[in-house]
């Protein structure tokens, strides 16, 4: 039932705003995300990356929370929103949000 235009939250650049369409994963992990407000329809804003690239600060429902990138991969957002930009390097090998993290560390 996932919309085809959904993208993982982890690939959004800081400054982007998007709507949550689905939270993947299971058990304690997914539940914790839902308890913090990551549910379908919620609006989430990417605030900033930590200086070492991980974790990332998000604003969800008026609360600022942090997530590691590989965790934010489980949150799918609507990819058609106007106010968003995708991170460079999104594509092959990104699957665990690792590549991006490493790139930023080298800076």
């Amino acid at each position, binding site marked *: *039932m996932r919309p085809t235009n959904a993208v993982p939250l982890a690939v959004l650049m800081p400054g982007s705003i998007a709507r949550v369409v689905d*939270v993947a994963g299971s*058990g*304690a*992990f*997914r*539940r*914790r*995300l*839902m*308890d*913090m*407000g990551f*549910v*379908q*329809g*919620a609006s989430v804003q990417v*605030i*900033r990356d*930590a*200086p*070492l*690239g*991980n*974790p990332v*600060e998000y*604003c969800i*429902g*008026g*609360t*600022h*929370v*942090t*997530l*590691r990138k590989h*965790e934010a991969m489980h949150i799918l957002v609507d990819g058609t929103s106007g106010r968003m930009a995708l991170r460079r390097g999104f594509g092959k090998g990104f699957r665990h949000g690792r590549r991006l*993290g490493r790139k930023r*560390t080298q800076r």
Partner: protein
Amino acid sequence: MKEALKTLRIALAGNPNSGKTSIFNAMTGARQKVGNWPGVTVEKKTGVLTYGNYRIQVIDLPGTYSLTSYSVEERAARSFIVEERPDVVIHVVDAGNLARNLYLTVQLLELGVDLVVDLNMWDDFEDSGATLDRDKLCTLLGSPVVSTIGHRGEGVDELIAAAVRLAEERCERHRHVPISYGSHVDDVLAELVDVIEAQAGLEGDYPFRWVAIKLLEGDDEIVDLVRIRAENAQPILELVERASRHIYNATGADPEKVISEGRYGYIEGALKVSMTKQKADRMALTRQIDNVFTNRFLGYPIFFLFVWLLFQATFKLGSYPMEWIDRAVGWLSATAAAVLPESLVSDLIIDGIIGGVGSVAVFLPNILILFLGVSILEDSGYMARAAFLMDRIMHALGLHGKSFIPMLMGFGCSVPAIMATRTLESERDRILTILLVPLMSCSARMPVYILIAGTFFAERAGSIVFLIYTIGIVVALLIGRLFAKTIFRSAHAPFVMELPPYRAPTVKGLLTHMWERGRLYVQKMGGVILVASIILWFLGAFPQQAELTTRYNDEVDRLNAIGSVEALDRVDELEMELAAIRAENSYIGRAGKLIEPVISPLGYSWQMGVSLITGFVAKEVVVSTLGVLYHAGEGDTDTTLPKVLRDPSSGISPLAAFGFMVFVLLYTPCIAAVAAVRREAGTRWMLFSIAYQSALAWFAGFAIYRVGCLLGLG
């Protein structure tokens, strides 16, 4: 005649960062008791107050976002509510963030508790320009709604009054309206409730509708409960199975998700009709501060500045009062020695009791200063930012960003560092951090390194000591990863951490916290450390060897009477000899010799074995024990400890000496640290910690010595 007080029990629930602690403090004042929830190391605080003719016991539940069975904190909170049935539950809500906070309110309502909703930090809410129709929210939630400003204590009396009134009335007006999760779930729920009701064995503590919801959510604890308690669980579980499939087919999502969304939907609806939007963004200032504090370039320098200040304050500033305590203890011993006639009892009082009390008191300045600092970091909201900055690095050790501060404090002293792990919310992170903190080389181990490295590696001593510290960090990294992948594998929780708005800490809040930690240390750990110190003194002083001592003393008296230079030199020699013989023949000395077969493969002499055992009191004692056992003199004679140790007759090679330093680095730090581990993590983890560290130290010492010998370094 005075009427007997009736007892009420009120539980405080709420999210972390909702100001629950300040409400608790305002309600109960200083009359608090700190303990643990049964079976887990989650802190449980209770307090007492009198109101009218009620004696009210207030129980502070762990701060949680939800009431699932996924975390120990949430399980502790909900099992208290379900099993202990407090008369009233007060839910402390951050008024500035109603949507997220009311999510827990809804779950409390599902549990069917008598609930008072406390809109805390009401000043922030009003400043933001929003308005709230409290009566309407009250009707929608079916619970009284009160507003408070916790850190100023405003509205707390009204809050207590509302809770008491609710307990007295339990009036119909406050019967809760069941929350709707959408027609698909609601229909299924009604059916499920009927089936559960029809089964014998489930009536009692658990509201049926709540059980039904939890079953649909797939809550392990409740599924097990039904299996155990219901006479016939089969029809219930079959229906749950069928209902879940039905919900999935109708909505495209599993029940847990649909129910969560239902709760948010209910809250959104309630707030839509009762609240007007906030005009000012309450996070605006916070965002600006964060632009600096978590800035790519400034973030770390600022962080390290704060941490440096904290470290300096704790251990440098703390060293002054520590010195005063040391001097006071010294003065006390001297006075006691002068007043009391020399006997076994006076020895016990002077060396055992006064020394023991001194060893407890000496940590107090560190603990108080550290916790003042930690409270400032926590209450202001900076601690979460520190964790945000450090998480990338700490995650490599299998730890949480917040573990950094305790780990760093470990370089000063393991005792306050272990106590500082309380800032970590999850039990898994806390225990893992507690297990790793002692690997950070504490300052008490420094005298050992200075002696050994200075003796055996003279000009390279600095590099060697640095190497020892590095080994500690590397071992912590490896062990952290190992434990994270083995013992703590199942309990991985996501790094979902709230970054709360910055707030100015209140003096009262800081002092309360500092006082609480200090008291906890003295009460819960002081006794253990004192008793252990006395026992170790006993083992060091016994058996008495009175005859030997008398013989030596007679000889000393005779030589003193002669008074020539040679005679006095001989007196010094005799006294050293006596001390060494007594130490060797004491129970500790015998134990040291007993373990000789264990430590000789590591290349250590029996004297080193004894010093490792006495080092259990405190690491500095290793040095003084070696001094006694090797007949070391003071000043610049031929018999100073370094010279004696370097002499081939000591039986210590440089390689073994290096291994010895690593052993001292890795094995159980001291009795006080062990007491701290027991206090914070429980007896089982304490035993584990002692066992793994001793094993680690032995294997490391063994590997260094044996590999070194093979390489021809011995």
